[in-house]
């Protein structure tokens, strides 16, 4: 099957080069940059007081208390300020119009959120201005298997392929979502079983595919042999081998196969306890790598989740992020994140707001989690490194470490303080936001 993303990459790389020029508010070529900061929150390690971050061609070259500065380096003075990695909203719907979030079909793993991305929408500027440098956008929760999600950078490019940090980050699924606000016990049953069916069907598909490949190989061998015989002094005529029927691959099954081969994690949205348990049961049965999404009532079965070492993306922390609380949020508890993380569950925080603009409140979400018992360092990690690890992009973003992308935020105070303002945002060493003085 053809991979749209790879395809795109080859093609439109040219455009980006041109676009770069006017998408970045200010770009200074590949000059090295050094940020002298009062507090550096590396997230991965302990904070560094009065340290320096050195940036070379968009990567972090060095950081620490005593870094030797090269000549003609652009020095940014942030002595009294905080520097931290760019924030990540792992439950964003930025760049996607509501109408494009969901497909009418229920099991549609072959869908790709990248086809729904509209780089021309403007909300991202506000999100960027709050220090968010990357978002994970997944299809909505109407379809049982909605399609593949992607991690995007807010680098302002008008070319989707330049925004993509990771395509096929996860495959989005949802169980037990009530379409109306009526109770949905029947739907629940149906959801669980139809996802299960799809996965079983995929197993069969994989076997058929292997068989077909084997047969083809076998045939080719025989054929070669036959031809050799044919050409050489023929002794006894062998009958010609028959070509096996051609195997028709199915895009949908291929994606699910990747899931079963643990190449793509399955991100299952589940709110109520029973749904979460269903999700876990599926993971037990098929052994794919599971990410629990939303997990509203997770705090009631924290140990179950912890025992299985299943990572969780919690959101919304407060129902203030959704317009009108649906039935799923009935037992919503603001301590959910705190309880889960305290029980040793790897928990990321997402906004999962009603629309793209919500993502700008990711720090507020973290602060609320902290208010309700999560310790602040964990809360900060839950909106930077933890989601990066879950989504498989920790090698690029999520923390301030040598070798990682220079996606970082400069703030005039502690990130969780409401009075703190974002001073500057960088993506790959380019300044993409700078606070106007009068603000």
């Amino acid at each position: 099957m053809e991979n749209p993303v790879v395809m795109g990459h080859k093609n439109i790389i040219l455009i980006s080069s041109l676009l770069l020029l006017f998408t970045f508010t200010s770009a200074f070529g590949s000059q090295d940059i050094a940020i002298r900061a009062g507090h550096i929150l590396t997230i991965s390690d302990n904070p560094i007081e009065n340290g320096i971050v050195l940036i070379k061609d968009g990567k972090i070259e060095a950081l620490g208390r005593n870094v030797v500065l090269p000549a003609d380096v652009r020095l940014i003075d942030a002595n009294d300020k905080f520097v931290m990695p760019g924030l990540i909203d792992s439950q964003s719907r930025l760049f996607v119009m509501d109408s494009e979030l969901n497909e009418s079909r229920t099991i549609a793993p072959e869908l790709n959120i990248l086809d729904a991305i509209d780089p021309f929408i403007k909300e991202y500027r506000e999100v960027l201005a709050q220090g968010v440098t990357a978002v994970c956008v997944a299809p909505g929760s109407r379809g049982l298997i909605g399609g593949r999600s992607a991690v995007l950078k807010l680098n302002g490019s008008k070319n989707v392929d330049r925004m993509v940090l990771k395509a096929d980050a996860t495959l989005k699924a949802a169980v037990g979502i009530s379409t109306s606000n009526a109770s949905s016990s029947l739907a629940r049953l149906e959801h669980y079983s139809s996802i299960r069916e799809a996965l079983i069907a995929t197993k069969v598909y994989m076997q058929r595919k292997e068989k077909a490949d084997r047969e083809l190989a076998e045939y080719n061998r025989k054929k070669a042999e036959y031809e050799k015989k044919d050409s050489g002094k023929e002794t006894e005529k062998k009958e010609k081998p028959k070509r096996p029927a051609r195997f028709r691959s199915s895009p949908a099954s291929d994606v699910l196969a990747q899931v079963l081969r643990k190449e793509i994690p399955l991100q299952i949205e589940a709110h109520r306890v029973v749904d979460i348990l269903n999700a876990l049961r599926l993971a037990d049965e098929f052994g794919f790598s599971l990410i629990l999404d939303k997990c509203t009532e997770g705090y009631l079965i924290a140990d179950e989740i912890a025992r299985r070492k299943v990572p969780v993306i919690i959101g919304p922390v407060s129902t203030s992020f959704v317009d009108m609380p649906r039935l799923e949020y009935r037992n919503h508890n603001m301590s959910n994140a705190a309880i889960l993380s305290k029980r040793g569950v790897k928990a990321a925080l997402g906004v999962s707001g009603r629309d793209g603009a919500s993502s700008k409140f990711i720090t507020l979400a973290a602060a609320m989690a902290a208010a309700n018992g999560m310790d602040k360092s964990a809360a900060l990690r839950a909106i930077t490194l933890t989601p990066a690890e879950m989504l498989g992009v920790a090698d690029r973003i999520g923390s301030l470490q040598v070798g990682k992308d220079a996606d970082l935020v400069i703030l005039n105070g502690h990130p969780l303080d409401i009075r703190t303002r974002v001073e500057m945002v960088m993506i790959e060493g380019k300044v993409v936001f700078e606070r106007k003085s009068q603000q």
Partner: protein
Amino acid sequence: MNPVRNSNRGKNKNIRQEPSISNGVKSKSYIAFVTVFSMAFVISVSVRAAPVRKKLAVKAGSIITITGADIKNGTILIEDGIIKAVGKKVEIPWDAFVIEAKDRVIMPGFVLAHTSSGLDRANENVPEVPFLSTFDSIDPISPYFEDSLRDGVVAMLVLPGNNTLLGGTGTVVKPHGLTVEAMLIKRYTGLKISLRPTGNTSRMGHMQRFRRYMSDLKDYLEEYEQRKADAKEEKKPFDEEIDPRKQPMLDLMNKKLTAFIYCDIAADVLKAIEIHEKYKLNTVLVLNPTCYKAAPLIAQKKLPVILHPQLIIWETNEETNEEEMKVIPMIFHKAGVKFAFQTDTSQYGRRYLWYQAATAVRHGMKREEALKSITLYPAQFIGVDDRLGSIQAGKEATLIFLTSDPLDAQAWVDKVMIAGEIVYEKEKDQRLKKLLEKPDEIQKPKDTD
């Protein structure tokens, strides 16, 4: 779709494998090939061989040649419907019939590069029907064609509507003639691809559907080639036809057909470019007004564009909350994109190509450029620029006689000449009279009570 008709199309190689049938002579011979349309042959020829004077000389007050400079008091010499010479001092042969048009402005007829009017229905409700052709759906007696001629349009590409993923192939016709065959200029030109999802599908589903179709097509071809190879190997004769329903998409990819890709929002343009580059197509973009945001990209890719009839839109500036007028043609013009105009009848003026051009000029577009985008450029986009779109020796004598400057609202199309034959005259236009003059006094009812 109708299997019988398709199998015909399938068997008839002439239609498909004839390399771009573009100039008049060829097209005649090409039609002649088409045994199934022998009827068409007779008619189309009879139309061409109508009482056209062999030699004509048009003495014009002024001539807008489009490609060259305008000519005051010039002469156009025409022989067998083809322009032989044009200029100030062209000597008129003794046997030429002279048409006096001293008080007229003469220019090449307008060309409309994209329309879905004149069809009984513009869209099929099945998403993938590339094998359909508007040829089978054009209604010659539709008032739309009559009006087009009245408005000075001499050639139009009729394509399926914008609601079908792979809508079918188009037909270039002139708005004159009693049968489609008689109107025909060039058939099997352009294939309509619409990137706007319809029904309750999302853009994800829509694009996936397209990719699915292409991967199936790939499979089919591989299998086909395999069978061919096998036959060769077994020294068996191989007479299997390519499935006619798939042929148009194949012709698209080997550039026999031009892709007319409709984009609903700016983001669709990105996908259009993706497709254009992946399959190396000849592409023309058919754009909705809001697609202007992608103008720089389009300019960089040097893709031709057909603009939506609505040339001016308003947008709310988020910072100031003011309404800002966006003049679409100007945005593309400044970006350096080559485009053609479209028409509709939803409000004053938009029905006329000259008015669309005038609107662009009003907001600062160069007059010459604007005139090109209603004549030469559309002719290029639909591949008839070798016979239409400008007044040059060697091109077809398809001209319009205007009462004054084309961009003036007071100018009327006085005469239309197609291939040397006058096919429209205002003073003989009964319908126009009815539309402009007061009907005879209808008698008043006697006052009751």
